[in-house]
């Protein structure tokens, strides 16, 4: 292939998930007020406590201002321009995949997640969220036999109101921050997962989020509860079509791990990042937090963030139970004009609690990549340990890497380690590789994948492969 053709191919491949599915959507008018919230709650046939909670959050949100401390820049968001509810119109509570709109299924196939195939081959239970309504939940029955509940959030609210009432908002209260309050007021769906005592979830649970309708904000809510001695591994993937407007995505994820329970939560985030000039793209403002409530419990966050125009996200762990463990493994790639401000908080409340943070930030083009982290060990939390590794890789000389680590240790028996580096891959390194027979693109891909290796290792096999491919696609055309 001639070089020019190849470059054009690569350029067009830039964001291959940028198609729009033409399905009639039932949408509320843009804007936010108590009536819209009542509408959402009514559409979802929610019990009274949900509406009250939403309204409380909304009234609190009105008193709050957008956080300004993040190292990102964007024009002001007009919250009255956003559509807060949109559902595919043909939707009628499908009982099985056969009842799902074939167009929707085709969309998923384009995304590379053929539900049907996954059902049969991969043994992955997928709860697919299309805009605001959960379209298909597979494997539910099989899981139900072990007492595992894995369903759309709206369904959980109706079927298991007591569980929802008991746990919702306990890790991320509605007043937690501006975007969490907004989410609480208007979230329309998400995933719910409950693993009973002593049960090891036999398969990876997976959710695919996708934003389809224009101007819509996707506000999903995920709640995972792992009872004593249980285990669950949860995967989340996100893509959005190309649009010239910016779209807001403000999700909340809450994890609760009881005694000796273990939750692994992995995200591959590939929302539309905007074009190379910074037009369009998702604002991804997400609150993710897990509570290690019980002794010897463990929560691991693994994230591969390659999409979104702006990412604002700090998956955190509150280490409350003695001997509990929190982990955060992150790869954040920013290209062109993307901005990411991401990291974690590890709050050590219990004795002998341990946390590990491994963060890899990669920047190319004019992108800005920020790691922001907090390790806090309280006075009574004796014998704690934290190990933090924070590495930044710069490709080229117009991008930026920033790190803002905070360490607050209030006792003398704990140990904290922090390791950080920033390296630049420049022309010299690329030329060295080319002199050995590698193309510039292969060289960058090898360097970046090597750099991210420790984090990819934390992902389930198929996800690791996908993450690696995704990274390569996103890196194409950024060098040379």
């Amino acid at each position, binding site marked *: 292939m001639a070089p020019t053709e190849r470059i054009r191919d690569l350029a067009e491949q830039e964001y291959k998930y940028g198609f729009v599915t033409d399905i009639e959507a039932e949408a509320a008018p843009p804007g936010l007020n108590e009536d819209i919230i009542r509408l959402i709650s009514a559409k979802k046939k929610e019990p009274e406590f949900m509406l009250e909670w939403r309204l409380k959050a909304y009234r609190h949100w009105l008193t709050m201002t957008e956080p300004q401390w993040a190292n990102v820049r964007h024009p002001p968001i007009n919250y009255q321009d956003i559509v807060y509810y949109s559902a595919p119109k043909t939707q009628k509570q499908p009982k099985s995949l056969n009842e799902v709109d074939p167009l929707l299924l085709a969309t998923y196939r384009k995304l590379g997640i053929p539900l049907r195939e996954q059902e049969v081959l991969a043994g992955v239970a997928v709860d697919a969220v299309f805009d605001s309504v959960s379209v298909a939940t597979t494997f539910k029955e099989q899981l139900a036999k072990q007492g595992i509940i894995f369903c759309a959030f709206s369904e959980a609210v109706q079927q298991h109101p007591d569980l929802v009432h008991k746990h919702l908002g306990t890790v991320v209260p509605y007043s937690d921050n501006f975007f969490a309050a907004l989410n609480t007021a208007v979230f329309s769906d998400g995933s719910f997962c409950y693993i009973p005592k002593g049960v090891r979830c036999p398969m990876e649970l997976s959710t695919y989020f996708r934003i389809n309708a224009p101007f819509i904000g996707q506000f999903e809510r995920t709640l995972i509860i792992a009872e004593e001695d249980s285990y669950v591994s949860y995967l989340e993937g996100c893509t959005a079509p190309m649009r010239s407007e910016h779209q807001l995505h403000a999700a909340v994820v809450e994890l609760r791990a009881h005694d000796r329970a273990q939750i692994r939560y992995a995200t591959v985030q590939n929302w539309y990042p905007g074009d190379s000039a910074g037009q369009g793209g998702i604002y991804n403002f997400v609150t993710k937090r897990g509570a290690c409530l019980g002794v010897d419990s463990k929560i691991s966050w693994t994230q591969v963030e390659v999409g979104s125009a702006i990412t604002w996200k700090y998956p955190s762990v509150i280490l409350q139970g003695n001997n509990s463990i929190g982990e955060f493994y992150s790869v954040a790639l920013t290209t062109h004009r993307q901005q990411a401000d991401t990291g974690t908080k590890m709050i050590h409340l219990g004795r002998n609690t341990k946390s590990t943070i491994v963060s890899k930030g990669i920047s190319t083009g004019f992108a800005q990549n920020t790691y922001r982290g907090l390790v806090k060990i309280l006075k009574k939390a004796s014998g704690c340990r934290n190990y933090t590794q924070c590495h930044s890789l710069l490709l080229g000389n117009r991008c930026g890497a920033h790190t803002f680590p905070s360490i607050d240790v209030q006792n003398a028996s704990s140990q904290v380690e922090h390791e950080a580096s920033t390296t630049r891959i420049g022309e010299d*390194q690329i*030329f*060295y590789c080319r*002199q*050995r027979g590698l193309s510039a693109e292969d060289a960058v891909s090898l*360097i970046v994948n*090597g750099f991210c290796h420790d984090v990819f290792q934390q992902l389930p096999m198929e996800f690791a492969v996908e993450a690696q491919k995704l990274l390569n696609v996103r890196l194409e055309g950024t060098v040379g």
Partner: protein
Amino acid sequence: MPTPILEIRHLSATAAGKEILRGMNLTVNAREVHAVMGPNASGKSTLTHVLTGREGYEVTGGDVRYQGKDLLAMPPEDRAREGLFLAFQYPVEIPGMKMMQFLKAALNAIRKHRGLEELDALDFLTIVKEKMQLLGMDPDLLNRPVNAGFSGGEKKRNEILQMAVLDPTLAVLDETDSGLDIDALKIVASGVNSLRRQDRAMIVITHYQRLLNYIVPDYVHVLIDGRIVKTGGRELALSVEAQGYGWLEKQAREGTAMP
């Protein structure tokens, strides 16, 4: 009948608008080892950069045939895949990329280009470990990022290791002796000598003749002001060591030194 591998004809090149090479000629045949010597700023580095295709150098005249092909028309990676290898004077560190992955990817890119099957990790390890033993290198280096934290000697040995693994037709050794103590120099030189072959040629670029005590060249060329002003055998290198470059520079200016 000798087989020419490299034919440099009337090569002129500029760097940052400044003329560095001024009509250089050099033919290198299979089996031969050529030493190119010269004082600072004579054009030695520019020659390696132009041969390997580094950006920032403009060829303003002449041409370079490599195994009959137009070398200058190829991108750097294709030159490498065609068997042109440069042992760098200052090998760069590549954080985040392990030697093992790097060298395996490079070897397979070259093998693919030559229509050979790509090697799996096991076959690759067998080859590379054998070569490492020959060079007295610690196999643990394979698990380290390329050149990161390597000592000066390790970096130079690592260049020779890559040369041994990538199996080039023409190897250019750029100031391979710089920064090496005598023991390291001997190891590197014996590594290079073990790679001399009937179907391979080498160009050894050096400021001092010390290296040539260990890698004995068939020809010695003296490069001054972007031109080869004198060609001879090993004795030429010894004269340079004894008398410096002054007499050659003088001859070059007076136009009496052209071979």
